[in-house]
């Protein structure tokens, strides 16, 4: 996977590149907006990581210019501007995801993974299946070992989000942003409470747990057997 990071802060860019390379990505760096736009147009990347405040051309303008030229490479906006409406502004400009600095590296990796795997659906189906857990998207029902699970609407949405990203780490903020459409940092463990409720329905009473906690990052749904 080939990524381009546009970041003017040399030290931060070096850390970013190092961390991403250790996670198995090929990374190119651009240090100002103009070079970044040029590189993003010239080469075919799988994902762009764009800082907002850049010399010569700001990050959101880069995204807008790319989108207007029909370039739909996924863009993850990284920025020190993190207020609610600045984040929304970033997404409206055409960014696919928005992360405020500083962030946990695990959060960044999880979001990159999610963006890279997006639109890679293997088959078109009205059913999602992980081991013996099955979700019928039309009937909005969930069964495990053929037994019907009783879920609330929010629990269903949570599980759907996890099942659509089977094998990927999903962070708490990703859940809050995507399932609840909320863009702020809760100061309490609200998401964990909902996840533990979901786990009690999905995993309790079954031999193999499917939902796992990833320390320092979030959750993952996968069949480990």
């Amino acid at each position: 996977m080939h990524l381009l990071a546009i970041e003017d802060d040399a030290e931060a860019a070096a850390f970013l590149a190092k961390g991403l390379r250790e996670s198995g990505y090929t990374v190119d760096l651009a240090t100002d907006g103009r070079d970044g736009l040029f590189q993003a147009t010239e080469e075919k990347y799988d994902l762009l990581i764009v800082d907002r405040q850049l010399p010569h051309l700001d990050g959101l303008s880069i995204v807008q210019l790319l989108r207007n030229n029909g370039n739909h490479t996924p863009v993850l906006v990284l920025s020190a501007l993190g207020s609610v409406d600045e984040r929304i502004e970033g997404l409206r400009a055409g960014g696919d995801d928005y992360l405020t600095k500083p962030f946990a590296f695990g959060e960044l990796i999880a979001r990159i993974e999610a963006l890279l795997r997006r639109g890679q659906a293997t088959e078109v189906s009205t059913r999602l299946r992980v081991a013996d857990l099955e979700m019928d998207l039309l009937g909005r029902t969930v069964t495990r070992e053929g037994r019907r699970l009783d879920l609330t609407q929010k629990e269903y949405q949570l599980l759907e989000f996890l099942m659509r990203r089977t094998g990927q780490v999903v962070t708490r903020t990703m859940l809050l942003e995507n399932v609840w459409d909320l863009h702020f940092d809760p100061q309490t463990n609200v998401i964990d409470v909902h996840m533990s409720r979901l786990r009690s329905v999905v995993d309790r009473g079954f031999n193999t747990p499917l939902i796992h906690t990833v320390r320092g990052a979030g959750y993952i749904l996968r069949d480990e057997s």
Partner: protein
Amino acid sequence: MNPNPGLRSSTTRLALAYGALSALLISALLGAVFLLTRGVLQREIDSRVSAEVESFTDVFESDGIQGVTDTLDKRTDSWGRLGAVYLLADSSLNPLAGNLTAWPKDVRCVPNGRVDFRIVAIVNDETVSHPVEARCEHLAGQYWLLVGTDTNDRERTLHRFAVATAWGVGLTSLLVLALGWRYSRRTSRRVRAFAATCDSIVRGDLTRRLTVSSAQDEFDALSTTVNAMLDRLERQTDTLRTTLGSIAHDLRTPLYRLRMRLEESLLDPKGPETQELVAPAMAELDRVQRTLSTLLEIARAESGAGSAMQQQVDLAHVAREMYELYAPGLQERDIHTRLEVTDSAMVNGQRQLLAQLLANLLENALKYVPAGCSVLMDVHVEHSSIVLMVADTGPGIAAADRERALQPFVRLHDTRSDSTGSGLGLSLVAAIARLHGATLTLEDNHPGLRVVCRFPSSDGRVG
């Protein structure tokens, strides 16, 4: 704003007052002219009649009754003046000369007395009754002389004059009212347009300006001044936004580098104590970062540097969502929760900020309300405002501390051991409320704390 102000509009009241005043003035003027004209006509007739009576008296004194009869015959033949009425009668009121066939029945004979009676005249082959004003004179205590005037024409003229006066007063008043109404409409339309523009500026759209017409009137002078003020405000807000952006950048960049270094040291531990040292440092860093975020959010909300508050948001829906998000956490701590929300409660604002406001109130409940207590969330419509209330039966806040609780960095509970609170939660709630034009009050819930937030309703708002 009332879309149809009617009598409440000051310009309408002014137009009505002017209408009434001019109607009064015109009535007085035309009324005076009418009375004056009638007086002049009356006096003219009176003097003519008196002169004639005197001349008849002179003729009687010099030539006797025969002289008077001759003069009368001459006068009646040639109709000395228009509408003249003469009658000379003997002592038993039998007519001797003049143009009346008989002494009018209802006229009593009073020497030198003024009398009114009606005569039957034939005009264009039609029999009509005309009023007559006359003077009665006793000649030598033997003959009665009646000299008068048919006042029909005069009365008709005066009547026409009165009708014309009434029409004049009515039409003028109508015209004044119509002009006043038009002027009032124009004025109030402009004022309403001003108010609508200012309203959207207050709600954060600083690009709007008041319209300046080519008329160069007082309104345009006002618009120009207000627009200049708005230009300055917009420039200042832009500067502020840039400044806040720079602050965010300059503070977050070192935090970002620091966090990356710490993460790197965790990936590549130099010894077993690395984890022990780094993990708390990272937690501390995240706390600093959260505090910074909250402060920047407060600054943006307070300064109005954030996005426009133009969207319509259903506060009831946001409340239901946030209740759904936080209720399980509260229930897990053995806190009873209850939701009382009306179907829909539209406010002007931003959903994310309103959600943040509710989240802060519910997180406070999570932090400070002990097990066994209860939390109630309520959204209802009250007159033209929408009331959001989060009430708990926890320890509450002492009346003296309530004002202080809304200020930044004030923590009322002894939280030195508690690392979850930044002391900014309620300040952010207050800032978001202010940004939405809402009033925030902390009240006693007997027992507990009741946070009440009153939003202006966005229903029926113009523009």
